[in-house]
Every structure is written in C-alpha cells, then in structure tokens.
C-alpha cells in the first residue's frame, strides 16, 4: 500500500475497475445472496474479488465484536446490568392460576401457583438426566381438586440417548414429583422432544 492511498481516505471508491459495476450494486447483490445469479458480475474477476472482500468484512465485523465481548476485561459490568434485568423481570412474573392444596385445618386455604407447579415440572425434568425441559403446559381445571390434568412437556434430549427410554424416565420423574408436592390428579403426561443437545 502506498502513502498516496492513505492520503485520500475520504475519496470515492474508483468504481471503474469493477468492470462497469459499482460497489453499491455489488453490496445489494451480496445482500440478495447472489441470487438470481448475475452472469455479468460473476464473470468479472474484479467483481468477484470485491464481493468476497465485502463478505469477509461483514463476517469480521460481527466476529470482531464477539471476540471483544468474549475477552471483556470487566465481567462485573455484565453482572450489574444482568442482575438489574433479572430483578425487574422477577417483579413482573405472572403466577397463573391457583392450584389448591388441602390442609388438615379446614380454616386454612393453601394454594400453589400454577407457575410454581410448572417450575416443579421443569426442575424435575432437568434432574432426570439427559433432558433439558422446554415448555410445560397444564391442561385441565387445576383449580378444582380432583379434576383430571394433562401435562404437556417439550424437552431437548441429550445426543445419543434413546428417546423412548428417556421419555419414560422423564414421565416417571415428573409424576413422582407432582404426586409428592401437589394433589393434582395427573391423567396423562405427554413428552415431545423438539431438540437435541450435546452434553
């Protein structure tokens, strides 16, 4: 690179070495995923070089920021805003329906929130082994004691695990935890694996 190049940092890019195409045009072509293919651009070595440079700079921009983020010298700052965020979120949580729990003293009315029950299901799933729980839905009238409830669970399964066997273990584990902590009558537990993770 010559010093002359550096003395003109603001000069417009000379487009005439792009076989009649402009950088703008090439940038838009790149944004369209080079589709439909423009034979005139693709047959020009200068354009192809410009395109690959543009593509590279685009990838480098994000990667450079990611690297910067990964090597951030101030982890305390990350912690500070995330803590603030989580506090706000927790204050906004909705608890859902009330799930009654009986008590020997009839004057006492105990309830678990639906959110707490779903939390139980998630924790049960996560401690099954080979599973990360996803969505959990309770279908049925959870507010009425004795009403039949269906639990729908989506989950990610660890790579290499048998789906049948893992689903069985998950169902048993969830049924067990719900029986121990709630009085819900669980009619059915449906499990759907919608993701695989590498443990």
């Amino acid at each position, binding site marked *: 690179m010559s010093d002359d190049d550096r003395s003109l940092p603001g000069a417009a*890019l000379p487009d005439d070495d792009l076989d009649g195409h402009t950088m703008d045009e090439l940038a838009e072509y790149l944004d369209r995923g080079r589709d439909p293919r423009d034979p005139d651009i693709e047959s020009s070595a200068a354009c192809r070089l410009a395109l690959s440079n543009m593509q590279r*700079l685009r990838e*480098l921009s994000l990667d450079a*920021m990611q690297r910067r*983020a*990964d090597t951030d010298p101030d982890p305390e700052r990350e912690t500070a805003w995330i803590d603030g*965020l*989580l506090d706000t979120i927790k204050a906004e949580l909705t608890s859902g329906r009330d799930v009654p729990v009986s008590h020997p003293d009839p004057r006492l009315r105990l309830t678990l929130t639906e959110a707490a029950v779903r939390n139980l299901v998630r924790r049960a799933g*996560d401690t099954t082994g080979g599973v990360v729980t996803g969505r959990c839905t309770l279908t049925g009238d959870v507010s009425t004691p004795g009403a039949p409830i269906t639990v729908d669970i989506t*989950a990610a399964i660890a790579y290499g695990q048998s789906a049948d066997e893992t689903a069985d273990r998950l169902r048993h584990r969830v049924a067990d935890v719900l029986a121990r902590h709630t009085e819900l009558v669980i009619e059915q537990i449906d499990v759907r694996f919608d993701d695989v993770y590498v443990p």
Partner: protein
Amino acid sequence: MSDDDPLGRAEDSTLVVRAADGDVPAFAVLARRHGPLMRVYAEQMLGSNVESDDVVQEAFLTGWRRLSDLESPARFRPWMMQIVTRKAIDRLRRRRHHDDVDELDRPADPTQNPERIVEARLQLDAMWAALDRLPADQRRCWLLRETAGYSYQEISEALELPVTTVRGLLARARQYLSREMEAWR
C-alpha cells in the same frame, strides 16, 4: 453457574420456549450468553459505554416481554440484535441535535502504526481496532447495514440523514475497512 447445570449447555431454542413459559433462570442464561456481544454492539453504535448498559438492559427487558412473538426460537440472537438496534437508534435520535454532528464528514484516521496492526496476533483484533477508529456516523451506518441488515432507506430514516449521505458514509467506511484489513487477506 456450575458446569453441570444442564441449562448452561441447552440450545437457545430450548431456553427461549422455557423463558417464554416464565422461567427466569433460562432467560438469565440467554442474557449471559448473548448480552456481552449486544453490549459491545450497542457501545459501537452509540460511541458510549455509559448508555450501552442501559440500552442492552432495556432491550433484554423488551425481549423478555415479547418472547411469545418470536416465531423461531432458534433465531433469538438476530432477533435481540434487532431490538438492541432499535433501542440504540432511539437514543441516538434523542441526542442527535446537540453532538457529534461535526464529525459527519470526518475521514477515519488511518492506522498510526501499521506495523503494530500487522503484528497483531489476531485478525479480529485488527478488525476491532479498525471499527473503533471509524468516525461515529460511518460506524453506525456500517453496523446498521452489515450487522443489522438495514437497507439504505432504513438507515436514512433511523439516523435522520439523506440517503445520499448514507451511501457516501457507507462507501467510505467500506473503503477504510478494506484498506485496513488488506494485510490480512
């Protein structure tokens, strides 16, 4: 977070549906995983690391409230990137009229010491340094175009600049970055 916490290894898509279900720890994992990049990005957009923390926090809060709108949970990162972009633009608009207008047309300083950059251990550090040296408006245009995928028209509206100016700023940013990164080809 302990290494044996399965949440820490779960895919974004799993964490997203779970967070949409009201699971705060799942969202905390997402925030820790993607927050640092978003903060660096916001910092580059705003040219300020005081405001970037606020912007990222606001953006994640918006993300949390709108998780159910995210149709494809695996696209969490680009989706958050768009939210951060919009929050950063809002900030820029609010302070638009009383600062950094003067640097609109300032060309980026060429590397003072090219050898140092050439010697830099990693290409990404060189790219970071180059991005960092771009004048604020060139950098914003570049990031909106290349990272957020905005059209010239959208950038023009976001930054309240004529499309022709956006075009010029982008051309200069591209030219500067290409030149700075030439040694790495």
